[in-house]
């Protein structure tokens, strides 16, 4: 026999070699875990789908919500602020005030309605021409109608209103904020629903993956015992299971990205038609490539988390006996 007399020489292996061996083992574990998953394509596909569906729901909802938010942020020119000027303000200064408003960055258009015009319009539209004629004095103030730029959100519009109301010449600035506020509240409600549903489903995914990994650990109990008997560290034993979790998670994320894209594409045709009928620029946007990538990454992270949960709970229980 040709044994060199070096004896147990693990400690003498070079650091560089050990690093390369470590990387090598990572590659082996990753490939081996993937192989094991692909060896049982049907049950693995089921796991991916379960994770995919659980992830698709919050991802799809939040994509829808984001599209709606983009819409509600634009308002499509539906908001107007009526700025009533004080009675003592003359028509000339009212005109110049209107021009000042027009110069603001957050104002799209301004229309000046003089008190005479207002009275004429009122008598015309109200059918109360006789009453108006009998008035000794025009009771209506000068009015400036201000339309904010489309990009403003509800808060910014409220700010603009307060700004205009604060001017010395201004009696009152009125914004019918009710529907705007309601929409904002609905959006907030939607956001929270998505958040809660998302948190629950994400927790569900972690638990599903944890359980899948627990079963994988259980089915390889004897192997784990043997590896520990010949000196495998916890890290060494853990590695393949963490990769298993990663692959399940990445696969699930991929399934979710596909499901969401297909579902949104399916919905986008009638939604676009509806938006066109209402003259709105609303359109349902899919997650896109970066969004899909994020979903896959999220899946991978959840997979790792689930595997870590299972591994830290169950692996130390398995000791050679």
């Amino acid at each position, binding site marked *: *026999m*040709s*044994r*060199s*007399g*070096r*004896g*147990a*020489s*693990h400690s003498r*292996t070079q650091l560089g*070699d*050990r690093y*390369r*061996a*470590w990387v*090598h*083992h990572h590659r*082996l574990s990753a490939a081996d875990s993937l192989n094991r998953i692909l060896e049982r394509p049907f049950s693995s596909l089921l796991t991916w789908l379960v994770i995919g569906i659980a992830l698709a729901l919050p991802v799809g909802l939040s994509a829808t919500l984001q599209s709606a938010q983009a819409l509600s942020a634009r308002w499509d020119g539906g908001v107007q602020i009526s700025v009533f000027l004080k009675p003592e303000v003359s028509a000339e200064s009212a005109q110049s005030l209107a021009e000042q408003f027009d110069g603001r960055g957050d104002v799209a258009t301004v229309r000046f309605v003089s008190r005479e015009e207002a009275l004429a319009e009122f008598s015309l539209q109200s059918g109360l021409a006789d009453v108006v004629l009998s008035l000794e004095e025009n009771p209506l103030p000068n009015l400036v109608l201000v339309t904010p730029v489309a990009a403003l959100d509800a808060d910014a519009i409220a700010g603009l209103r307060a700004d205009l109301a604060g001017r010395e010449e201004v009696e009152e600035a009125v914004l019918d904020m009710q529907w705007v506020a309601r929409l904002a509240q609905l959006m907030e409600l939607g956001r929270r629903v998505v958040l809660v549903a998302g948190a629950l489903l994400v927790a569900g995914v972690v638990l599903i993956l944890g359980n899948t990994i627990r079963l994988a650990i259980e089915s390889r109990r*004897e*192997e784990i*015992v*043997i*590896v*520990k*008997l*010949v*000196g*495998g*560290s*916890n890290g*060494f034993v853990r590695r393949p299971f963490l990769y298993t979790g990663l692959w399940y998670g990445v696969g699930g994320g991929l399934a979710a990205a596909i499901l969401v894209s297909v579902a949104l594409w399916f919905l986008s045709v009638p939604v676009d038609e509806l938006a066109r009928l209402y003259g709105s620029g609303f359109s349902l946007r899919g997650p896109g490539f970066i969004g899909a990538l994020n979903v896959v990454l999220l899946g991978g992270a959840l997979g790792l988390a689930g595997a870590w949960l299972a591994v830290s709970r169950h692996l130390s229980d398995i*000791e*050679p*006996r």
Partner: protein
Amino acid sequence: MITFDRVSMRYDEGHDALRDVSVTIDPDDLVFLTGHSGAGKSTLLRLIMLMERPTRGQVIVDGRNLQKVRRRGIPRHRRDIGVVFQNHRLLLDRTVFDNVALPLTISGYDHREVGRRVRAALDKVGLLDRERAMPEVLSGGEQQRVGIARAVVGRPRILLADEPTGNLDPALSAEIMQLFEEFNSVGVTVLIASHDLALISRLHHRIITLREGRIVGAGA
């Protein structure tokens, strides 16, 4: 190389498996550990492997007091010891090569080095041509030799074997014992638990006898 100093071991169930055992196994020795079933042979080996901790007393292996080896240090300790089991405990879904390579992979050897060493170990046990085979297609004796190759591939200074011939016929058993003698002759301390007195008494090595957890004969 291995010293037991007044070691007692009681399992949780309350049965005393070892009682006040003191014994020293010298470096480069080959020692048999014998006694009836239930005498405590396996327990003694398990203490060396740190699969159990003694209730009382100290175990010192290669100058290392095992009391001082914490949980985290156990894998490290086991890598310095080769073990052979009665039921060989091979990974049934891996090739012979991969089974033998396992300790080296764990220790982090470069894979070329792994290849060289695995083939050297398989050569020593006469199974070089079976490296691609799965363990199931091998005979009992061949499986046990794969187990031995795995135990020695990391070139440990200590080799433990628990009933390594328990499932084998006399001719195969003699071959296996001869393998252990060969490893011992190149400087490996070997400790073999076996109740096959007929076999081991022919081999002229030191025999330690246990009865109900006590040493009744420690040989010379």
